[in-house]
Protein backbone atom coordinates (compact mmCIF):
# COMPACT_ATOMS: atom_id res chain seq x y z
CA UNK A 1 0.00 0.00 0.00
CA UNK A 2 1.09 3.52 -0.69
CA UNK A 3 2.43 5.99 1.81
CA UNK A 4 3.47 9.58 1.76
CA UNK A 5 7.16 10.11 2.19
CA UNK A 6 8.99 13.39 2.46
CA UNK A 7 12.23 14.28 0.80
CA UNK A 8 13.94 16.95 2.82
CA UNK A 9 16.42 17.76 0.07
CA UNK A 10 13.58 18.85 -2.17
CA UNK A 11 11.35 20.63 0.33
CA UNK A 12 11.10 24.33 -0.42
CA UNK A 13 9.45 25.37 2.82
CA UNK A 14 6.68 26.93 0.74
CA UNK A 15 4.11 25.14 2.89
CA UNK A 16 1.63 24.87 0.08
CA UNK A 17 1.01 21.30 1.26
CA UNK A 18 -0.48 22.76 4.40
CA UNK A 19 -2.66 25.14 2.43
CA UNK A 20 -3.93 22.38 0.19
CA UNK A 21 -4.36 19.91 3.04
CA UNK A 22 -6.58 22.40 4.78
CA UNK A 23 -8.53 22.84 1.59
CA UNK A 24 -8.94 19.12 1.09
CA UNK A 25 -10.22 18.76 4.63
CA UNK A 26 -12.53 21.73 4.52
CA UNK A 27 -16.23 21.82 3.89
CA UNK A 28 -16.01 24.14 0.91
CA UNK A 29 -13.00 22.41 -0.75
CA UNK A 30 -12.15 25.88 -1.99
CA UNK A 31 -8.62 27.03 -1.32
CA UNK A 32 -9.64 30.57 -0.74
CA UNK A 33 -12.66 29.98 1.49
CA UNK A 34 -11.03 27.12 3.36
CA UNK A 35 -7.99 29.11 4.30
CA UNK A 36 -9.68 32.35 5.04
CA UNK A 37 -13.32 32.26 5.95
CA UNK A 38 -14.43 28.81 6.93
CA UNK A 39 -15.41 28.22 10.56
CA UNK A 40 -14.15 26.18 12.19
CA UNK A 41 -10.86 26.75 10.45
CA UNK A 42 -9.81 23.47 8.88
CA UNK A 43 -6.64 22.04 10.32
CA UNK A 44 -3.74 21.00 8.17
CA UNK A 45 -2.76 17.42 8.76
CA UNK A 46 0.65 17.92 7.29
CA UNK A 47 3.17 20.19 8.89
CA UNK A 48 6.31 21.64 7.43
CA UNK A 49 9.14 21.88 9.91
CA UNK A 50 12.41 23.66 9.47
CA UNK A 51 13.37 26.77 7.55
CA UNK A 52 14.34 27.70 4.02
CA UNK A 53 17.67 25.95 4.38
CA UNK A 54 16.33 22.63 5.57
CA UNK A 55 12.69 21.76 5.83
CA UNK A 56 10.40 18.83 5.46
CA UNK A 57 6.72 18.16 5.48
CA UNK A 58 5.59 15.53 7.87
CA UNK A 59 2.38 13.65 8.09
CA UNK A 60 1.12 10.37 9.49
CA UNK A 61 3.25 7.40 8.52
CA UNK A 62 0.30 5.04 8.89
CA UNK A 63 2.52 2.65 10.83
CA UNK A 64 2.18 -1.08 10.50
CA UNK A 65 1.78 -1.35 14.24
CA UNK A 66 0.44 2.05 15.16
CA UNK A 67 1.00 3.16 18.72
CA UNK A 68 -1.82 5.66 18.46
CA UNK A 69 -4.34 2.90 17.77
CA UNK A 70 -3.13 0.92 20.77
CA UNK A 71 -3.22 3.94 22.99
CA UNK A 72 -6.64 5.12 21.92
CA UNK A 73 -8.95 4.92 24.91
CA UNK A 74 -12.17 5.14 22.93
CA UNK A 75 -11.61 2.92 19.91
CA UNK A 76 -11.83 6.01 17.71
CA UNK A 77 -8.43 5.46 16.21
CA UNK A 78 -8.43 2.46 13.91
CA UNK A 79 -6.30 1.05 11.18
CA UNK A 80 -8.26 0.01 8.11
CA UNK A 81 -7.49 -3.60 7.42
CA UNK A 82 -7.57 -3.32 3.64
CA UNK A 83 -6.12 0.13 3.00
CA UNK A 84 -3.89 0.29 6.05
CA UNK A 85 -4.98 3.86 6.60
CA UNK A 86 -5.13 4.96 10.22
CA UNK A 87 -8.33 6.91 10.73
CA UNK A 88 -9.88 8.86 13.57
CA UNK A 89 -13.58 8.45 14.05
CA UNK A 90 -14.39 11.99 15.09
CA UNK A 91 -17.66 10.97 16.71
CA UNK A 92 -15.99 8.56 19.06
CA UNK A 93 -12.88 10.59 19.79
CA UNK A 94 -13.15 12.59 23.00
CA UNK A 95 -9.99 14.52 22.28
CA UNK A 96 -7.97 13.08 25.14
CA UNK A 97 -4.86 13.22 22.94
CA UNK A 98 -3.23 10.13 24.34
CA UNK A 99 -2.51 9.28 20.70
CA UNK A 100 -0.59 12.52 20.35
CA UNK A 101 1.43 11.65 23.42
CA UNK A 102 2.54 8.32 21.98
CA UNK A 103 3.04 9.11 18.29
CA UNK A 104 6.79 8.93 17.86
CA UNK A 105 6.67 11.00 14.66
CA UNK A 106 4.66 13.88 16.02
CA UNK A 107 2.01 13.48 13.38
CA UNK A 108 -1.16 14.04 15.36
CA UNK A 109 -2.53 17.46 16.08
CA UNK A 110 -4.88 18.37 18.83
CA UNK A 111 -8.33 19.60 18.08
CA UNK A 112 -11.79 18.85 19.31
CA UNK A 113 -10.93 15.39 18.13
CA UNK A 114 -7.50 14.21 17.15
CA UNK A 115 -6.47 15.61 13.76
CA UNK A 116 -4.37 13.52 11.49
CA UNK A 117 -3.66 12.61 7.90
CA UNK A 118 -6.15 10.25 6.32
CA UNK A 119 -4.33 10.10 2.97
CA UNK A 120 -7.31 12.08 1.69
CA UNK A 121 -9.45 9.00 2.22
CA UNK A 122 -7.64 6.91 -0.32
CA UNK A 123 -7.83 9.46 -3.10
CA UNK A 124 -5.62 8.69 -6.05
CA UNK A 125 -3.14 11.14 -4.77
CA UNK A 126 -3.41 13.05 -1.51
CA UNK A 127 -3.77 16.80 -1.86
CA UNK A 128 -0.39 17.57 -0.32
CA UNK A 129 1.41 15.30 -2.75
CA UNK A 130 -0.58 16.53 -5.70
CA UNK A 131 0.18 20.14 -4.97
CA UNK A 132 3.81 19.92 -3.93
CA UNK A 133 5.57 22.08 -6.49
CA UNK A 134 8.88 20.30 -6.14
CA UNK A 135 7.79 16.69 -5.63
CA UNK A 136 9.21 16.78 -2.14
CA UNK A 137 6.28 14.64 -1.08
CA UNK A 138 5.83 11.37 -2.83
CA UNK A 139 3.07 8.83 -2.62
CA UNK A 140 4.58 5.46 -3.24
CA UNK A 141 4.46 1.88 -2.17
CA UNK A 142 6.75 0.91 0.60
CA UNK A 143 9.00 -0.77 -1.88
CA UNK A 144 9.48 2.67 -3.37
CA UNK A 145 7.64 1.96 -6.59
CA UNK A 146 6.05 5.01 -8.01
CA UNK A 147 2.27 4.89 -8.12
Amino acid at each position, binding site marked *: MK*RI*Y*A*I*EELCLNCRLCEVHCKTAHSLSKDVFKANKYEEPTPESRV*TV*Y*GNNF*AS*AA*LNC*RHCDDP*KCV*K*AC*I*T*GAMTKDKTTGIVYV*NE*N*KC*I*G*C*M*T*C*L*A*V*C*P*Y*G*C*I*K*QGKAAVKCDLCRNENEPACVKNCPNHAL*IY*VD*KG*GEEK
Partner: protein
Amino acid sequence: MKYIIIGASAAGLACAEQIRKEDKDGEITVLTKEKYLPYSRPSISSYLKGAVKENNMYLRKSSHYTSEGIHIVTGAQVKIIDRKSKTVKAGRKTYPYDKLCICTGSKPFVPPMKNVDGKENALTFLDLESAKRIKRLANPRTRAVVIGGGLIGMKAAEGLSKICKSVDVVELAPHILPSILDEKSAKTVKKHIETEGHIKFHLEQTVTEAKSSKNKIISLILKNGDEIACNLLLLAVGVRPETELAEKCGLEVSRGIITDPATMQTSDKSIYAAGDCTVSVDMLDGSKKIIALWPNAVNQGIAAGSQMAGGKITINKSFSVNAIDFYGLRICTCGLINVQGAKYSDKVICNGDRYKRLIFEGGRLAGYVLINSSENAGIYTNLIETGMDLSSLSGNLFDTPNPFLFVKPVRNKLLKGELDL
Protein backbone atom coordinates in the same frame (compact mmCIF):
# COMPACT_ATOMS: atom_id res chain seq x y z
CA MET B 1 -7.66 -24.48 23.15
CA LYS B 2 -10.02 -22.68 25.47
CA TYR B 3 -9.20 -19.18 26.57
CA ILE B 4 -10.99 -17.35 29.32
CA ILE B 5 -10.45 -13.68 29.95
CA ILE B 6 -11.90 -12.01 32.99
CA GLY B 7 -12.59 -8.37 32.36
CA ALA B 8 -13.42 -6.63 29.13
CA SER B 9 -11.73 -3.30 29.18
CA ALA B 10 -8.40 -2.26 27.64
CA ALA B 11 -6.32 -5.24 28.70
CA GLY B 12 -9.04 -7.87 28.35
CA LEU B 13 -10.05 -6.80 24.87
CA ALA B 14 -6.47 -6.38 23.66
CA CYS B 15 -5.70 -9.82 25.07
CA ALA B 16 -8.67 -11.43 23.32
CA GLU B 17 -7.88 -9.79 19.99
CA GLN B 18 -4.24 -10.72 20.21
CA ILE B 19 -5.11 -14.34 20.89
CA ARG B 20 -7.29 -14.34 17.81
CA LYS B 21 -4.45 -12.96 15.73
CA GLU B 22 -2.21 -15.83 16.69
CA ASP B 23 -4.71 -18.65 17.16
CA LYS B 24 -7.39 -18.77 14.51
CA ASP B 25 -9.30 -21.66 16.04
CA GLY B 26 -9.12 -21.30 19.81
CA GLU B 27 -12.30 -20.68 21.78
CA ILE B 28 -12.15 -17.23 23.32
CA THR B 29 -14.55 -16.22 26.03
CA VAL B 30 -14.46 -12.87 27.76
CA LEU B 31 -16.36 -12.58 30.99
CA THR B 32 -17.37 -9.15 32.16
CA LYS B 33 -19.39 -8.33 35.21
CA GLU B 34 -20.71 -5.26 33.47
CA LYS B 35 -23.79 -5.38 31.37
CA TYR B 36 -22.20 -3.62 28.42
CA LEU B 37 -20.00 -4.75 25.60
CA PRO B 38 -16.47 -3.35 25.95
CA TYR B 39 -16.65 0.42 26.15
CA SER B 40 -14.29 3.26 26.77
CA ARG B 41 -14.16 3.56 30.49
CA PRO B 42 -12.06 6.73 30.48
CA SER B 43 -14.79 8.38 28.43
CA ILE B 44 -17.30 8.28 31.22
CA SER B 45 -16.41 11.81 32.24
CA SER B 46 -17.08 12.95 28.68
CA TYR B 47 -20.30 11.05 28.85
CA LEU B 48 -21.12 12.80 32.07
CA LYS B 49 -20.64 16.23 30.59
CA GLY B 50 -22.51 15.19 27.46
CA ALA B 51 -19.59 15.40 25.07
CA VAL B 52 -20.01 11.86 23.87
CA LYS B 53 -23.06 9.71 23.33
CA GLU B 54 -23.30 6.25 24.78
CA ASN B 55 -23.40 4.55 21.37
CA ASN B 56 -20.09 6.15 20.49
CA MET B 57 -18.43 4.82 23.61
CA TYR B 58 -18.25 1.22 22.51
CA LEU B 59 -14.76 0.24 21.55
CA ARG B 60 -15.84 -2.06 18.72
CA LYS B 61 -18.95 -2.68 16.73
CA SER B 62 -20.85 -5.66 18.11
CA SER B 63 -20.41 -7.40 14.76
CA HIS B 64 -16.68 -7.28 15.34
CA TYR B 65 -16.91 -9.87 18.10
CA THR B 66 -18.94 -12.23 15.95
CA SER B 67 -16.60 -11.92 13.02
CA GLU B 68 -13.54 -12.35 15.22
CA GLY B 69 -15.09 -15.22 17.12
CA ILE B 70 -14.71 -13.58 20.50
CA HIS B 71 -17.48 -14.58 22.82
CA ILE B 72 -18.29 -11.83 25.27
CA VAL B 73 -20.41 -12.75 28.23
CA THR B 74 -21.84 -9.68 29.92
CA GLY B 75 -23.12 -9.62 33.48
CA ALA B 76 -20.84 -12.47 34.35
CA GLN B 77 -19.31 -11.76 37.74
CA VAL B 78 -16.64 -14.38 38.31
CA LYS B 79 -16.78 -15.74 41.81
CA ILE B 80 -14.13 -18.38 41.84
CA ILE B 81 -11.11 -19.46 39.88
CA ASP B 82 -10.58 -23.16 40.41
CA ARG B 83 -6.99 -23.77 39.44
CA LYS B 84 -7.19 -27.51 40.03
CA SER B 85 -10.03 -28.17 37.63
CA LYS B 86 -9.03 -25.19 35.47
CA THR B 87 -12.44 -23.66 35.60
CA VAL B 88 -13.94 -20.35 36.56
CA LYS B 89 -17.36 -19.92 37.96
CA ALA B 90 -19.58 -17.01 37.14
CA GLY B 91 -23.10 -17.05 38.40
CA ARG B 92 -24.41 -20.50 37.84
CA LYS B 93 -22.12 -21.27 34.96
CA THR B 94 -18.75 -22.90 34.98
CA TYR B 95 -16.24 -22.07 32.29
CA PRO B 96 -13.34 -24.46 31.69
CA TYR B 97 -10.10 -22.91 30.51
CA ASP B 98 -6.73 -23.97 29.19
CA LYS B 99 -5.38 -20.47 29.56
CA LEU B 100 -6.82 -17.79 31.72
CA CYS B 101 -6.15 -14.09 31.82
CA ILE B 102 -7.16 -11.89 34.69
CA CYS B 103 -7.89 -8.34 33.61
CA THR B 104 -10.02 -7.22 36.45
CA GLY B 105 -8.70 -3.68 36.56
CA SER B 106 -9.17 -1.49 39.60
CA LYS B 107 -11.65 -0.92 42.27
CA PRO B 108 -12.32 2.39 43.92
CA PHE B 109 -10.64 3.08 47.19
CA VAL B 110 -12.90 4.71 49.72
CA PRO B 111 -11.30 6.13 52.86
CA PRO B 112 -13.18 5.81 56.09
CA MET B 113 -15.57 8.70 56.66
CA LYS B 114 -18.29 9.02 59.18
CA ASN B 115 -21.83 8.70 57.96
CA VAL B 116 -21.02 8.28 54.29
CA ASP B 117 -21.22 4.61 53.59
CA GLY B 118 -24.53 3.58 52.13
CA LYS B 119 -25.91 7.03 51.51
CA GLU B 120 -27.83 7.07 48.28
CA ASN B 121 -26.21 10.28 47.01
CA ALA B 122 -22.64 9.11 47.77
CA LEU B 123 -21.22 7.46 44.70
CA THR B 124 -18.01 6.26 43.18
CA PHE B 125 -17.09 7.07 39.59
CA LEU B 126 -15.43 4.24 37.74
CA ASP B 127 -17.73 2.71 35.22
CA LEU B 128 -20.52 3.54 32.83
CA GLU B 129 -23.13 2.38 35.28
CA SER B 130 -21.92 4.81 37.94
CA ALA B 131 -21.72 7.61 35.38
CA LYS B 132 -25.29 6.98 34.35
CA ARG B 133 -26.39 7.05 37.95
CA ILE B 134 -24.64 10.33 38.60
CA LYS B 135 -26.11 11.80 35.47
CA ARG B 136 -29.55 10.88 36.72
CA LEU B 137 -28.95 12.50 40.10
CA ALA B 138 -27.15 15.64 39.01
CA ASN B 139 -29.12 18.70 38.01
CA PRO B 140 -28.62 22.47 37.90
CA ARG B 141 -29.55 22.75 41.55
CA THR B 142 -27.08 20.15 42.67
CA ARG B 143 -24.22 21.11 44.95
CA ALA B 144 -21.65 18.47 44.18
CA VAL B 145 -18.57 17.61 46.17
CA VAL B 146 -15.77 15.48 44.83
CA ILE B 147 -13.39 13.87 47.21
CA GLY B 148 -10.11 13.36 45.47
CA GLY B 149 -8.18 15.72 43.19
CA GLY B 150 -6.60 13.05 41.10
CA LEU B 151 -7.31 12.19 37.48
CA ILE B 152 -10.69 10.59 38.10
CA GLY B 153 -11.80 13.13 40.62
CA MET B 154 -10.86 16.08 38.49
CA LYS B 155 -12.46 14.68 35.34
CA ALA B 156 -15.60 13.97 37.34
CA ALA B 157 -15.53 17.49 38.77
CA GLU B 158 -15.18 18.93 35.28
CA GLY B 159 -18.12 16.86 34.10
CA LEU B 160 -20.26 17.88 37.03
CA SER B 161 -19.40 21.55 36.70
CA LYS B 162 -21.22 21.59 33.40
CA ILE B 163 -24.39 20.41 35.08
CA CYS B 164 -24.36 21.43 38.71
CA LYS B 165 -24.79 24.68 40.57
CA SER B 166 -21.49 24.24 42.39
CA VAL B 167 -18.66 21.78 42.59
CA ASP B 168 -16.19 21.48 45.46
CA VAL B 169 -13.10 19.32 45.38
CA VAL B 170 -11.51 18.06 48.53
CA GLU B 171 -7.98 16.80 48.23
CA LEU B 172 -5.61 15.52 50.83
CA ALA B 173 -2.44 16.46 48.99
CA PRO B 174 -1.12 19.99 48.80
CA HIS B 175 -1.79 20.13 45.07
CA ILE B 176 -4.18 18.62 42.60
CA LEU B 177 -3.41 15.81 40.20
CA PRO B 178 -0.47 14.65 42.34
CA SER B 179 0.12 11.57 40.24
CA ILE B 180 0.81 13.48 37.05
CA LEU B 181 1.73 16.99 38.03
CA ASP B 182 4.43 18.57 40.06
CA GLU B 183 3.61 21.32 42.46
CA LYS B 184 4.29 24.24 40.22
CA SER B 185 2.36 23.01 37.26
CA ALA B 186 -0.47 21.90 39.48
CA LYS B 187 -0.90 25.49 40.60
CA THR B 188 -1.29 26.66 37.02
CA VAL B 189 -3.82 23.98 36.32
CA LYS B 190 -5.73 24.69 39.46
CA LYS B 191 -6.00 28.33 38.63
CA HIS B 192 -7.28 27.53 35.17
CA ILE B 193 -9.87 25.13 36.53
CA GLU B 194 -11.04 27.59 39.15
CA THR B 195 -11.49 30.29 36.52
CA GLU B 196 -13.02 28.21 33.80
CA GLY B 197 -15.05 25.76 35.83
CA HIS B 198 -15.82 27.75 38.99
CA ILE B 199 -14.68 24.79 41.00
CA LYS B 200 -13.76 25.38 44.59
CA PHE B 201 -10.77 23.53 45.96
CA HIS B 202 -10.13 22.40 49.50
CA LEU B 203 -6.54 21.29 49.47
CA GLU B 204 -4.76 19.45 52.27
CA GLN B 205 -8.19 18.64 53.56
CA THR B 206 -10.18 15.54 54.28
CA VAL B 207 -13.80 14.99 54.98
CA THR B 208 -14.27 13.89 58.50
CA GLU B 209 -17.96 13.55 58.65
CA ALA B 210 -21.11 13.87 56.61
CA LYS B 211 -24.41 15.23 57.71
CA SER B 212 -27.36 13.50 56.29
CA SER B 213 -31.07 13.50 56.14
CA LYS B 214 -33.31 10.68 54.94
CA ASN B 215 -30.33 8.59 53.93
CA LYS B 216 -29.04 11.48 51.87
CA ILE B 217 -25.97 13.51 52.57
CA ILE B 218 -26.74 17.20 52.92
CA SER B 219 -23.36 18.58 53.95
CA LEU B 220 -19.80 17.62 54.78
CA ILE B 221 -17.52 18.63 57.62
CA LEU B 222 -13.87 19.04 56.72
CA LYS B 223 -10.79 18.46 58.85
CA ASN B 224 -10.49 22.17 59.49
CA GLY B 225 -14.06 22.29 60.65
CA ASP B 226 -15.52 23.93 57.58
CA GLU B 227 -18.87 22.69 56.53
CA ILE B 228 -19.76 22.54 52.86
CA ALA B 229 -23.18 21.94 51.44
CA CYS B 230 -23.45 18.78 49.45
CA ASN B 231 -26.27 16.95 47.80
CA LEU B 232 -24.10 14.77 45.55
CA LEU B 233 -20.92 13.25 46.83
CA LEU B 234 -18.42 11.66 44.53
CA LEU B 235 -15.81 9.44 46.06
CA ALA B 236 -12.78 9.53 43.86
CA VAL B 237 -9.92 9.36 46.26
CA GLY B 238 -8.21 6.71 44.27
CA VAL B 239 -8.25 3.19 42.97
CA ARG B 240 -6.63 -0.04 44.00
CA PRO B 241 -5.97 -3.08 41.85
CA GLU B 242 -8.82 -5.53 41.88
CA THR B 243 -6.95 -8.59 43.06
CA GLU B 244 -9.60 -10.38 45.07
CA LEU B 245 -10.06 -13.30 42.66
CA ALA B 246 -6.35 -13.83 42.31
CA GLU B 247 -5.78 -13.73 46.01
CA LYS B 248 -8.60 -16.17 46.66
CA CYS B 249 -7.20 -18.76 44.31
CA GLY B 250 -3.75 -18.40 45.80
CA LEU B 251 -1.84 -16.50 43.17
CA GLU B 252 1.03 -14.32 44.26
CA VAL B 253 -0.25 -10.87 44.96
CA SER B 254 1.29 -7.82 46.52
CA ARG B 255 -0.27 -4.41 45.80
CA GLY B 256 -1.39 -5.96 42.58
CA ILE B 257 -1.13 -9.34 40.92
CA ILE B 258 2.47 -10.30 40.48
CA THR B 259 3.43 -11.38 36.99
CA ASP B 260 6.48 -12.05 35.01
CA PRO B 261 7.22 -8.55 33.68
CA ALA B 262 7.84 -9.81 30.16
CA THR B 263 5.19 -12.50 29.66
CA MET B 264 2.53 -11.38 32.13
CA GLN B 265 2.40 -14.91 33.43
CA THR B 266 1.35 -15.22 37.05
CA SER B 267 2.64 -17.71 39.52
CA ASP B 268 0.31 -20.23 37.84
CA LYS B 269 1.63 -21.12 34.40
CA SER B 270 -1.86 -21.30 32.92
CA ILE B 271 -2.91 -17.99 34.31
CA TYR B 272 -1.91 -14.57 33.09
CA ALA B 273 -2.84 -11.15 34.25
CA ALA B 274 -2.82 -7.78 32.52
CA GLY B 275 -3.87 -4.24 33.05
CA ASP B 276 -4.48 -2.15 36.11
CA CYS B 277 -4.78 -5.15 38.39
CA THR B 278 -1.12 -6.03 37.98
CA VAL B 279 2.12 -4.72 39.32
CA SER B 280 4.25 -3.21 36.56
CA VAL B 281 7.94 -2.57 36.49
CA ASP B 282 8.62 0.98 35.43
CA MET B 283 11.36 0.67 32.83
CA LEU B 284 12.57 4.10 33.67
CA ASP B 285 13.60 3.51 37.25
CA GLY B 286 12.99 -0.17 37.70
CA SER B 287 10.47 0.41 40.42
CA LYS B 288 7.50 -1.84 40.85
CA LYS B 289 4.32 0.12 40.72
CA ILE B 290 0.79 0.16 39.56
CA ILE B 291 0.63 1.90 36.19
CA ALA B 292 -3.08 2.21 35.80
CA LEU B 293 -3.03 3.73 32.34
CA TRP B 294 -4.68 2.66 29.13
CA PRO B 295 -1.66 2.22 26.79
CA ASN B 296 0.08 0.15 29.43
CA ALA B 297 -2.99 -2.04 29.85
CA VAL B 298 -3.28 -2.59 26.11
CA ASN B 299 0.37 -3.48 25.79
CA GLN B 300 0.12 -5.91 28.67
CA GLY B 301 -3.05 -7.41 27.23
CA ILE B 302 -1.34 -7.94 23.89
CA ALA B 303 1.68 -9.54 25.51
CA ALA B 304 -0.47 -11.80 27.67
CA GLY B 305 -2.66 -12.76 24.71
CA SER B 306 0.31 -13.55 22.54
CA GLN B 307 1.95 -15.66 25.23
CA MET B 308 -1.28 -17.52 25.89
CA ALA B 309 -1.61 -18.39 22.22
CA GLY B 310 1.98 -19.56 22.09
CA GLY B 311 3.26 -16.37 20.49
CA LYS B 312 6.38 -14.43 21.17
CA ILE B 313 5.29 -10.91 22.02
CA THR B 314 6.54 -9.79 25.39
CA ILE B 315 6.38 -6.54 27.19
CA ASN B 316 9.45 -4.84 28.42
CA LYS B 317 8.61 -1.23 28.26
CA SER B 318 6.21 -0.14 30.88
CA PHE B 319 6.06 3.48 31.69
CA SER B 320 3.34 5.94 32.25
CA VAL B 321 2.09 8.32 29.64
CA ASN B 322 -1.00 10.35 30.05
CA ALA B 323 -2.89 13.04 28.23
CA ILE B 324 -5.83 14.89 29.62
CA ASP B 325 -7.56 18.21 29.31
CA PHE B 326 -9.53 20.44 31.57
CA TYR B 327 -11.64 23.12 29.99
CA GLY B 328 -9.34 23.20 26.98
CA LEU B 329 -6.19 23.16 29.04
CA ARG B 330 -4.09 20.37 27.64
CA ILE B 331 -1.95 18.40 29.96
CA CYS B 332 0.41 15.78 28.81
CA THR B 333 2.74 13.89 31.07
CA CYS B 334 5.04 11.00 30.75
CA GLY B 335 7.65 9.04 32.61
CA LEU B 336 9.11 10.06 35.90
CA ILE B 337 7.67 13.27 37.15
CA ASN B 338 7.90 13.39 40.87
CA VAL B 339 11.35 11.96 41.28
CA GLN B 340 14.01 13.03 43.64
CA GLY B 341 17.68 12.36 43.65
CA ALA B 342 20.97 13.62 42.36
CA LYS B 343 20.82 11.71 39.13
CA TYR B 344 17.71 13.59 38.07
CA SER B 345 17.54 17.11 36.89
CA ASP B 346 14.86 19.13 35.26
CA LYS B 347 14.27 22.30 33.36
CA VAL B 348 11.14 24.32 33.08
CA ILE B 349 10.17 26.71 30.33
CA CYS B 350 7.18 28.83 31.10
CA ASN B 351 5.71 31.21 28.59
CA GLY B 352 2.27 32.62 29.26
CA ASP B 353 -0.06 29.71 29.67
CA ARG B 354 2.47 27.37 28.10
CA TYR B 355 4.42 25.29 30.52
CA LYS B 356 7.03 22.75 29.65
CA ARG B 357 9.01 20.79 32.17
CA LEU B 358 11.47 18.19 31.08
CA ILE B 359 12.99 15.77 33.55
CA PHE B 360 16.38 14.30 32.76
CA GLU B 361 18.26 11.35 34.06
CA GLY B 362 21.82 12.07 33.14
CA GLY B 363 21.95 12.58 29.41
CA ARG B 364 18.57 11.05 28.77
CA LEU B 365 15.04 12.26 28.97
CA ALA B 366 13.12 10.64 31.82
CA GLY B 367 9.87 12.47 31.89
CA TYR B 368 7.91 15.54 30.93
CA VAL B 369 5.04 17.67 31.98
CA LEU B 370 3.52 19.71 29.20
CA ILE B 371 0.73 22.14 29.75
CA ASN B 372 -0.72 23.78 26.67
CA SER B 373 2.43 22.82 24.90
CA SER B 374 1.88 19.21 24.15
CA GLU B 375 2.40 19.51 20.39
CA ASN B 376 4.20 16.44 19.11
CA ALA B 377 4.63 15.18 22.69
CA GLY B 378 4.97 11.70 21.24
CA ILE B 379 8.45 12.57 20.06
CA TYR B 380 9.44 13.23 23.67
CA THR B 381 7.72 10.01 24.68
CA ASN B 382 9.75 8.21 22.09
CA LEU B 383 12.95 9.78 23.40
CA ILE B 384 12.03 8.53 26.86
CA GLU B 385 11.09 5.09 25.62
CA THR B 386 14.19 4.58 23.50
CA GLY B 387 16.47 6.23 26.00
CA MET B 388 18.14 8.17 23.25
CA ASP B 389 21.28 10.01 24.16
CA LEU B 390 20.25 13.65 24.02
CA SER B 391 23.70 14.78 23.02
CA SER B 392 23.11 13.10 19.67
CA LEU B 393 20.31 15.53 18.88
CA SER B 394 20.84 18.44 16.58
CA GLY B 395 17.89 20.65 17.46
CA ASN B 396 16.77 22.49 20.56
CA LEU B 397 14.94 20.05 22.78
CA PHE B 398 12.71 22.77 24.17
CA ASP B 399 11.27 23.81 20.84
CA THR B 400 8.21 21.96 19.65
CA PRO B 401 9.82 18.63 18.93
CA ASN B 402 9.95 17.81 15.24
CA PRO B 403 12.08 15.84 12.83
CA PHE B 404 14.71 18.54 12.85
CA LEU B 405 15.43 17.66 16.45
CA PHE B 406 17.34 14.72 15.07
CA VAL B 407 20.50 14.49 13.05
CA LYS B 408 20.04 13.89 9.37
CA PRO B 409 20.32 10.09 9.16
CA VAL B 410 17.73 9.67 11.90
CA ARG B 411 15.57 12.37 10.40
CA ASN B 412 15.75 10.80 6.99
CA LYS B 413 14.45 7.59 8.39
CA LEU B 414 11.55 9.42 9.98
CA LEU B 415 10.72 11.11 6.71
CA LYS B 416 11.42 8.41 4.21
CA GLY B 417 11.06 5.25 6.27
CA GLU B 418 13.07 2.47 4.71
CA LEU B 419 12.81 3.99 1.26
CA ASP B 420 16.02 4.39 -0.59
CA LEU B 421 15.48 7.52 -2.62
